């Protein structure tokens, strides 16, 4: 960004006052052209990536539609606007229509950060809504009222991340928010680990049982106190049946107590 604020001085030393004015006009028109090109390329690029289909149905896209535009339109317009503002600021600086040390020069340096921040917020909004849709689709078969909380949590977690990135870009002190995020992530990982402890142990044992097949369906086995015919072995449990009773034994218990195969 240092170079942008130095350019005007370089230009002014090279050209006469009239020449400087012409150069600033040239920079302005070049900027307008570049802005248009950026707008068109961004649009094409996003359409080729299938962005319109991906954002279909998210609240952000719906809001954009009701305002007569679309997500792709907003993002490409934003990119073009960014280029226009830079071109105008440079042109103004070269022509010395404003004070070089004034607000505008610092604004130019600040602009890319602002653009990235806005972009991060837009992506965050869309990703959050999309994730919510996907998760609730997955949980459709679960008819518990509590299950509807999960998609909301996912959505707001992503919003939070997006806001954090945006604020970080703008140079706002985000230390407290970061610590909060770390605590949240740790809690999530820790609690999930705790909750899935038994399932993970069963899956690890189940992996061995499935791959090595020390016993298979139809074998008569004794596992712990249970004796019976194996009816099913899956990742987490083994079904053993005897006298019309089906015992469903967690796989880690199978590994811990060992298996006795009964061969008459």
């Amino acid at each position, binding site marked *: 960004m240092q170079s942008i604020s130095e350019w005007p001085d370089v230009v002014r030393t090279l050209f006469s006052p009239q020449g400087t004015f012409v150069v600033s006009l040239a920079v302005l028109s070049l900027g307008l052209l570049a802005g248009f090109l950026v707008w068109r390329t961004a649009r094409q690029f996003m359409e080729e990536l299938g962005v319109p289909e991906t954002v279909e149905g998210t609240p952000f896209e719906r809001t954009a539609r009701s305002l007569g535009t679309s997500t792709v339109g907003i993002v490409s317009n934003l990119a073009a606007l960014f280029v226009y503002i830079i071109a105008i600021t440079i042109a103004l600086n070269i022509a010395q229509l404003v004070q070089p040390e004034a607000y505008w020069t610092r604004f130019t340096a600040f602009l890319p950060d602002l653009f990235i921040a806005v972009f991060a917020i837009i992506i965050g909004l869309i990703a959050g809504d999309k994730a919510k849709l996907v998760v609730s689709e997955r949980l459709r078969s679960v008819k518990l009222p509590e299950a509807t909380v999960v998609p909301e949590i996912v959505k707001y977690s992503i919003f939070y991340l997006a806001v954090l990135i945006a604020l970080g870009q703008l140079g706002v002190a985000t230390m407290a928010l970061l610590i909060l995020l770390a605590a949240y992530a740790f809690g999530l990982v820790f609690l999930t680990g705790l909750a899935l402890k038994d399932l993970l142990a069963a899956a690890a044992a189940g992996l061995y049982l*499935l*791959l090595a*097949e020390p016993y*298979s*369906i*139809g*074998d*008569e086995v004794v596992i712990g106190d249970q004796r*019976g*015919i*194996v*009816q*099913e072995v*899956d990742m987490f449990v083994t*079904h053993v*049946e005897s006298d019309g009773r089906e015992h469903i034994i967690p796989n880690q218990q199978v590994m811990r107590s060992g298996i006795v195969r009964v061969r008459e």
Partner: protein
Amino acid sequence: MNELRDLLDGLVADIDAVFLFSPSMSDYEALEESECTVVVVGPENSVDAAEFVELPIDFTDLEGRIRFGIEGALEQELVEEGDEVVCVSGFMTGTANAVARIQTNDFSPSGVYDLFVNSRAEPGVVRDIFEVAVELGKKGQKGKPVGALFVVGDAGKVMSKSRPLSYNPFEKSHVHVGDPIVNVMLKEFSRLDGAFVISDAGKIVSAYRYLEPSAEGVDIPKGLGARHMAGGAITRDTNATAIVLSESDGLVRAFKGGELVLEIDPEEY
């Protein structure tokens, strides 16, 4: 025309329930207002009806469809035995164009609903095997008709009541019915003799199994061969369901509890 309308009025007078087979939303909503029970029967509950019987396979003949719907409703206690019901269904074409009045105890239950819903194996597994058998019956193996015997559910007991004829090609494999590769695999393996054994959850446990149930007193229709006898008998000894594709007449039959419960022609399916 009045006489015809009177005839139709007589047909739908004093009924206890209406059975709608795959109805459109507007038909269902119009009938829902009436005071008698409305039962929807179809492959999926597209109208969100409270009383619903799911059809696991697409019965092409009207009788099979009605039989399944009524047996399902009786099982779920949506209607009672002896109720007069009217069935509205598509006949020949998909739209609702046929009306039939039936008393629920007019026919003896064949257990076809029971076969899909109350089997030991999961309903989806029974349906998948059915589809494989029908497909096999339609195409055969390299154009020649083949026979096949699938024993579904209670695999542990079936395995202990059978012995291998040769090495089990499915040993240490984790193939489940419904995987796309399975149709091809089963088609190839159907040239082997013996039965396929499938577990409750749909895992193919073994091929090449020689079933050794005691066939004493198993009563299956005369004219069916050893494959059907073996299939029928194993279902009496265990809680399994046997689905048999006949090599000679090409029909798919299902046995449960030692009895024939369903017989369909793959060509019509």
